[in-house]
């Protein structure tokens, strides 16, 4: 396929000389909404060479996805439009092409992979047809040729049994497998460029590692350039050659990935790098955060967008927006103090403290556990209800015999991939699910089957913070009503006035303002809503809080603020946390001890430092390997093993050790017996017979 033959005369010579595959120049995108014009992208410029991987990094709403949809000319019509700029692809300005010319480029020269593999494939068409479609459209293949190519593509992306899989529908595939299908579609016409928009955000860490490795290998082998859009700095460090950091519709910084991570030249980049908890560094006292919130793009302030949140702000920052300028060779930054920053570093600008505080040891009461869980089992029946045919009901052993203790003042982390039962453990402790077996002892009393007043007392002392701050607050209630409701149910306050005072007090404690009691949840940002959720939990003066993925829906800079808040509250009120999360770095930062779960069972329990420094169980090791560390230099040296296979269905878990199907150490004996949790070293438990 020679692209040049398709080009219009005047532009063709320029195209053949340009070393760049894609050149985005001064791109401006506006969205017209009922509340005004949102300037979603303002003056973005970047270039991509053939075969390289370029990352676009930034938090939600910064314009990274919009700018890539603009390249494909797939902005939602009629609201979104490109108002200025050029997008040169192989020398042709994509913005000037006719719709038919553009359609020929889509899927053939530029392909796209989207974030949500669960919704990005058409549910009523076979996988085979969906892969064949671009081949039939662009390459004029016959059905047979296209089918043969589709099968090759499925093989290429590592799909087992491709022949049979071609005739299946998307719902018969797991999330990871669907993303492989998306990659096969993207690769089908041998494109020059693939734009991947958060391709692994919806996937588990071990699957994420598989998919990213696959994309990177394929793009290297086939010489395809990759534009990777992500919020995950670790992914950038592991996979990108060059990186563009975006903030509030503008570029903040640009350069080679290694250089940007080693020496950020924009305060925002420095702040981002600082606010992620990392697996490779000792834990400091608290996470350093970027205070404040990103600006509203409907009405942004003049000057540097980051200025209000920037500790190194000067008068010049507010006057006019600083242009993206070359500070060092091939290093661009949109900061007026970039040169100074290059000389003295972030510390010199006062962006971070020179000597991080060591963590304050927590006061633990090791005499008696606050919560003791013994052989807890929670099973769900599926397929129940009216059935004409028998044998259709079966059982999911969501939690299958787990035991642990939690001491007062401690944070116990509970990690694992989706479907491992971690959330069910939390819900069972909260008595939102009925335990099928085992027992839970809280403050010396068995609460497994407690009812009446005893259950009521228990529920007051154990509270929960949910994952999704968008759907876990009732949209028809004000913040004040949400926080006050449990207090009224339990008659903790004598009258409305006392309730109002208490709500105001709680709001202040979680870093919100008293006047926010009158607001409705949709008027608050994600981070603020999560603070409301925390205030609601605190209202009951609990001793134990189950935090179920409390920060996973939040942006990095907001995530750090919430983690710091939780830690401060724990210190102040001697709270005990069960911290459920899939992010190993966050769990490491906040926990004293960590429990690793897989398919309803505990794989390993140990003190935080022991677990992360010397993981014993092969699953824990694989999990830690799968997490990319935001440091390209370190990633380059790191030897990590990508765990193959998928998490088996909890409906039909493997016999013997549940992990044996994916375990690098597994032998025949692992298929026979279920390994019990044993104390391999003092206070370090693992469930594996091979160690």
């Amino acid at each position, binding site marked *: 396929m020679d692209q040049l033959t398709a080009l219009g005369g005047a532009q063709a010579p320029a195209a053949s000389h340009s070393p760049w595959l894609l050149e985005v120049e001064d791109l401006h995108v506006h969205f017209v909404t009922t509340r005004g014009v949102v300037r979603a992208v303002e003056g973005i410029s970047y270039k991509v060479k053939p075969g390289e991987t370029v990352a676009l990094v930034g938090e939600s709403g910064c314009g990274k996805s919009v700018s890539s949809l603009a390249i*494909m000319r*797939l902005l939602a019509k009629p609201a979104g439009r490109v108002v200025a700029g050029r997008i040169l692809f192989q020398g042709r300005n994509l913005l000037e092409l006719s719709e038919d010319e553009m*359609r*020929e*480029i*889509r*899927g*053939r020269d530029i*392909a*796209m992979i*989207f974030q*949500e593999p669960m*919704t*990005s*494939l*058409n*549910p*009523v*068409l076979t996988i085979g047809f969906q892969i064949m*479609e*671009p081949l039939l*459209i*662009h390459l004029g293949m016959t059905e047979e040729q296209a089918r043969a190519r589709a099968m090759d593509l499925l093989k290429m992306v590592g799909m087992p049994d491709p022949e049979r899989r071609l005739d299946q*529908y998307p*719902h*018969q595939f797991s999330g990871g497998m669907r993303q492989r299908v*998306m990659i096969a*579609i993207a690769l089908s016409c041998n494109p020059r460029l693939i734009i991947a928009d958060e391709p692994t955000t919806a996937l588990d860490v071990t699957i994420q590692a598989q998919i990213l490795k696959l994309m990177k290998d394929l793009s290297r082998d086939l010489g395809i350039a990759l534009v990777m859009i992500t919020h995950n700095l670790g992914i950038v460090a592991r996979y990108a050659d060059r990186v563009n950091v975006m903030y509030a519709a503008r570029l903040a910084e640009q350069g080679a990935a290694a250089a940007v991570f080693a020496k950020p030249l924009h305060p925002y980049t420095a702040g981002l790098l600082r606010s992620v908890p990392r697996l490779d560094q000792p834990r400091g006292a608290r996470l350093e955060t970027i205070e404040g919130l990103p600006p509203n793009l409907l009405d942004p302030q003049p000057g540097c967008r980051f200025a209000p949140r920037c500790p190194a702000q000067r008068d010049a920052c507010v006057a006019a927006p600083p242009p993206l300028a070359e500070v060092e060779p091939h290093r661009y930054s949109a900061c007026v103090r970039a040169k100074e920053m290059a000389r003295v570093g972030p510390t010199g600008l006062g962006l971070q403290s020179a000597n991080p505080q060591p963590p304050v040891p927590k006061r633990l009461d090791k005499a008696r556990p606050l919560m003791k869980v013994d052989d807890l089992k929670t099973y769900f029946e599926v397929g129940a209800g009216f059935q*004409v*045919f028998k044998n259709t009901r079966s059982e999911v052993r969501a939690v299958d015999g787990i035991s642990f203790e939690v001491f007062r003042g401690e944070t116990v982390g509970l990690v694992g991939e989706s479907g491992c039962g971690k959330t069910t453990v939390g819900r069972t402790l909260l008595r939102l699910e009925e335990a099928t077996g085992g027992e839970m002892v809280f403050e010396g009393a068995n609460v497994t089957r407690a009812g009446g007043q005893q259950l009521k007392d228990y529920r007051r002392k154990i509270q929960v913070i949910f994952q999704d701050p968008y759907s876990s607050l009732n949209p028809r209630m004000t913040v004040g009503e949400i926080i006050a409701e449990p207090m009224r149910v339990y008659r903790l306050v004598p009258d409305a006035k006392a309730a109002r005072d208490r709500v105001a007090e709680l709001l202040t404690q979680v870093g919100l303002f008293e006047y926010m009691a009158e607001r409705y949840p949709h008027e608050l940002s994600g981070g603020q809503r999560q603070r409301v959720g925390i205030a609601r939990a605190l209202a009951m003066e609990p001793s134990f809080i189950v935090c179920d993925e409390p920060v996973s829906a939040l942006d990095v800079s907001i995530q750090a603020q919430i983690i710091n808040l939780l830690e401060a509250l724990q210190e102040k009120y001697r709270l005990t946390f069960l911290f459920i999360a899939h992010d190993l770095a966050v769990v490491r930062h906040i926990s004293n001890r960590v429990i690793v779960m897989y398919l309803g069972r505990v794989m390993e329990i140990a003190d935080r430092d022991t677990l992360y420094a010397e993981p014993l169980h092969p699953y824990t090791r694989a999990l830690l390997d799968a997490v990319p560390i935001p440091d390209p230099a370190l990633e380059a040296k790191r030897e990590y093993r990508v765990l193959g296979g998928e998490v088996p269905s909890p409906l039909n878990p493997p016999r013997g050790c549940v992990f044996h199907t994916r375990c690098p150490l597994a032998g025949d004996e692992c298929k026979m017996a279920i390994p019990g949790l044993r104390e391999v070293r003092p206070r370090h438990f693992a469930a594996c017979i091979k160690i």
Partner: protein
Amino acid sequence: MLRFILHRTLLMVPTLLGVAVLVFFMLRLMPGDPVATMLLGDAGGANISKEIIEAERARLGLDQPLYVQFFKWFWGALQGDFGFSMWTGQPVSYEIAIRLELSLQVAVMATMLAVLLALPLGTLSAIFKDTWIDQVIRMFSIAGLAVPSFWLGMIIILLLLSVFSWIPPLTFTSFVEDPWENLSQLIWPALAVGYRYSAVSTRMMRSSILEVLQEDYIRTARAKGVRERLVVARHAMRNALLPVVTVIGLEFAFLIGGLVVTEQVFNLNGIGKLFVQAVARSDFTMIQALVLLVSVFFVLINFVIDMLYAFLDPRIRYH
């Protein structure tokens, strides 16, 4: 798939059994004795003695315990024998049969009209959202919702009369006997009913397509370079049809026996008219049979909808 069909078929049995029980016993709770209504109504109530009423009740089997009555009726119904109308004395199945063909034909024709109008109009309206095409189609469908079918029916008759000096034939001729005569009578009520029906479906189709066009897989299709026409025809329409199929199916079931006023306007002797007469005359056997008939239609239509769903959506097929 076979298993799915079998499962759904078996599920219809308890549903219909439940309907039979409910219909029978709820009718018995209705005030008004059918015999008294029949005899007193006719003769003005003067010289009908208690004995005559009792004798008539015994003749109709109404003096027996309720459960005996039920089982007798139910056993007969299973064999297609619904007894005799308490009013006309004719077999119920005969009374229904002579009217069912007409009602069924109007329902089928109205549905065809609705589908033929709604799918293309709803889709066009969605694709050209907020343009003049969309505005015109929306006006057409809102008018269809606002105009009652019987009023439209009267307008149609008046127009035919004043423009062509012709009115549709008054007696029903079977389609098999004389298609032309048959259609020239039934096309008009089908038009009057089908318009409203298509308006409902058009609006459903429009919102359904609009919703589907927001889906991620539509963006995927566009990113593959699929022509916009094919994006709609191949990727959007099949997904969008699911809710529309439900609306169309339930509406169809309603048309059997639900066209009381329209039948009046066009002077059609259909199921709807029979229904009203039976209720007015406390004709228990007739009401039972009619309610059961309509229920059977609803259950069957739902079965067909389920099958269509399974055909359209593989997620249901393989479950």
